[in-house]
């Protein structure tokens, strides 16, 4: 594929590049590096939250909203890889199928492939390709997470955390790590019983967490299955995202925040590359099991072994 095809928004070429990046072909990385100067125009919105909270439906309705506003929308949806087989079922886009034929929408599914934090390693690579292809609004849907380890979402401009009423007696399902990254909180399926209580609990948790000045986090109620109809809350959600954008990315701290985003991305890349090398180094020494055997046989203590291994990479 040529650079120009990608910049022209050729779907087949862009999709193939994404596949090659996901499969971590070195030649694809070379293309990505060339694309980099053409990126930076898109606004990235991360969507995360509990399993079953309706994230895909929220994304579906947001696509409809941004399309109505005339934006070109790229979507990256991530589903978990089965640790058992290495396979995955990527079914998020079923909920977005009505946009399948819209030339202004590009939806791409990825499997985590062993990566933690609810995203696949190639997520931001794929987002960069979408950016270079001219998609100005990029929605990134993580796997259903209840735990922390969502640091990587700091690389998005605005992170939306979706929850639903009725997850249990309290809202512990939204763990503090998830709350930490939330720029906007969504109570989806808000026509269900318990929506008031869920909202109250969220407010309470935000207050508890606030040491000193409380982070401005809007809570929006949605019924995402209603699409853009009156009372769905999707327009309000989009407004909350825009408000966050104004506050942060058009505000005085924008430059510092941008540096923070880039740092997060860079740190992630460095960590991943180091992990690759460590894995390779271990493989060259017969693999992790073999190394563990040396510890078990008391040939070495684990600290020295780890230090020596890392020193060699």
């Amino acid at each position, binding site marked *: 594929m040529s650079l120009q095809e990608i910049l022209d928004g050729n779907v087949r070429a862009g999709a193939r590049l994404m*596949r090659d990046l996901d499969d971590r*072909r070195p030649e694809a990385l070379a293309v990505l590096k060339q694309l980099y100067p053409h990126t930076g125009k898109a606004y990235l919105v991360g969507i995360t939250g509990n399993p079953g909270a309706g994230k895909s439906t929220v994304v579906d309705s947001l696509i409809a909203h941004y399309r109505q506003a005339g934006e070109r929308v790229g979507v990256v949806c991530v589903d978990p890889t*089965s640790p058992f*087989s*290495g396979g995955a079922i990527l*079914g998020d886009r*079923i909920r977005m199928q009505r946009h*399948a034929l819209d030339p202004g929408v590009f939806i*791409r599914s990825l499997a985590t*492939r062993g990566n933690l934090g609810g995203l696949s390693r190639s997520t931001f690579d794929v987002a960069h390709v979408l950016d270079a292809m001219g998609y100005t609004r990029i929605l990134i849907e993580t796997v259903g997470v209840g735990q922390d380890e969502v640091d990587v979402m700091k690389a998005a401009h605005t992170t939306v955390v979706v929850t639903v009423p009725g997850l249990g007696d309290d809202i512990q399902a939204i763990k503090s790590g998830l709350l930490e990254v939330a720029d906007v909180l969504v109570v989806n399926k808000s026509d269900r019983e318990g929506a008031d209580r869920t909202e109250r609990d969220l407010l309470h948790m935000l207050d508890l967490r606030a040491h000193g000045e409380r982070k401005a986090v809007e809570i929006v109620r949605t019924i995402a299955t209603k699409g853009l109809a009156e009372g769905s809350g999707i327009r309000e959600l989009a407004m909350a995202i825009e408000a966050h954008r104004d506050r942060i990315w058009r505000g005085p701290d924008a430059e510092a925040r941008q540096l923070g985003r880039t740092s997060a991305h860079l740190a992630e890349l460095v960590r991943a590359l180091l992990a690759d090398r460590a894995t390779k180094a271990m493989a060259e020494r017969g693999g992790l099991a073999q190394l563990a055997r040396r510890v078990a046989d008391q040939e070495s203590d684990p600290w020295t072994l780890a230090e020596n291994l890392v020193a060699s990479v």
Partner: protein
Amino acid sequence: MADAPWIFRTYAGHSSAQASNALYRQNLAAGQTGLSIAFDLPTQCGYDPDDAIARPEVGKVGVPIASIDDMHALFEGIPLDQMNTSMTINGTAIWLLALYVGVARERGTDQRALRGTIQNDIVKEYLARGTYIFPPAPSLDLIAESYEYCVAHMPQWNPSNVCSYHLQEAGATPVQELAFALADALGVLDRVAARQRVDDAAFQQCVGRVSFFVNAGMRFVEEMCKMRAFTRMWDALCRERYGVTDPKLRQFRYGVQVNSLGLTEQQPENNAWRILIEALGVTLSKDARCRALQLPTWNEALSLPRPWDQQWSLRLQQVLAFETDLLEYGDLFTGNPVIEAKVTALVDGATAELAKIEAMGGITGAIDTGYCKKELVRSMAARMGRIERGEQIVVGVNKYVEALPSPLVGGSDGGVFHADPAAGDAARAAVAATRARRDPARAAAAVAALVDAATRGAPIMEASIACALARVTTGEWAQALRDVWGEYRAETGIAGASIGGASDDWQALRTRVLARVDATGRRPRLLVGKPGLDGHSNGAEVIAVAARDAGFEVIYAGIRVSAAAIAQTAVQEAVDLVGLSILSGSHLELASAVVDELRARGGGDIPVVIGGTVPAHDHAELLRRGVSRVFTPADYKLSDIVGALLDLCC
């Protein structure tokens, strides 16, 4: 004196209202005692025959009914007040009932004399059959309204059939079938109660109007016990939950279509015996005997049946009812300790399962969370696994496979039905004629009144009858309501299931996938989807899960996807292979469309495979049109199928 036999029906309809009418008259003359209308998929999903998504499907799996004019033609020469008519219709059930009432009114027939049923069960559409349109809340309200309306204005009509039939086809065990169906029925009645639009006496009548549509499989002793368990549990639920005092109103009334899941493409003549045995399960016990019986045909796993095939199945019923002494005795099994123990075990299992569903907020909660769907996909996967491993014997499939060639499939038509290829044109001409001759102002006003009623949450039955009389079309009626209520996408249930166990075949397959990943650096990516309107998703779901368990990344696009959308998805996802599941008989049109759309998008190099009921004589044509491989029900070994998919991925 012998008991009267059950109602003999045959599920029938194809091509056009006129052709189906001729078939019904022929069947009635052959001794059939009721009608069972099969509608085509556009009618079931609420599209007119000239709608783009409907085009390949018109007249394929049933009759197209786009307006009251088609309904008149369908019942030409058949007196409605003397007929017992069952309509297999769900998403658009209340509309087809409105058309039926409309025909009665225009003929001057008293609508209170109409007898029969609309299937009108949305739960199993979400779980298994896929012809739902609207979200659960308005869908359940439509069913509740059917009860309110029928009890007041059509007292001999069954407003819905609670269907466990499709649950068993989707893999349900007897306990699941019992629990899910009863939870479904309670959901309907709870809704009627919550709406408070009928008084207590009328509510008790509503309970009495609940009827069921049940499946019966090859384990016919257990199936008979299942019917007895149904009878026992339904009586108790009506008494305890709704305080119904009249025992007649607590009767478990059911019709049956016996099992198609167990019918085989291999040695298809054996299916004749299977159908007979399945029929025994629902007729032997007087206390739990069906009210109406429909039998599939010996060649259902090959394609759609011909009139002669249907006549052969009808004759089975007649031989059973009229030549044997079956109807001369009381119940043969009451007090039998073996039967009693089995029934008790089923009741206990189903009661526990029902309690679980109740704890999730009843059937709507259990659907919303995906629980029921997950359990069904899991049961189906387990069944496929047992057959693959030879633990469950299917004669001619995994045992006694060697056989002489069957003369039944040797005829010039290959032993299967061929739908009229011109049916679509005729249906499109008919709907155009209806639109041309109606009063446009009256039609528009009728639709506006319908939208108004739906928006206010008011009953829509009378407004729908007014639409029928104003010659509003099926597509117009459905679109008006889609605009008010939105369209629904059901849970897929594939997340929780697993198929590939630790058997040697699967280990070997996973090793092959891993070797490919190591050699090429590529993990195989497969797109699975169902083009067209057919919603029977079990096959597609099982393949998706099996491929995942072998190590594929599977993009599951779900049901009712246009050929263009499948192609666009394949290109955006940069998949290695596209797998289509098609059961509606529209495989030639749909496969061609997907191949063409892929080429138009620069994805012509992505191979396409098809799985489904594809008759042998169409295989060569599909390959000629660019399909790489065809899988049929004869390919039952999932590890072999997925292995073949892997070979195509390079």
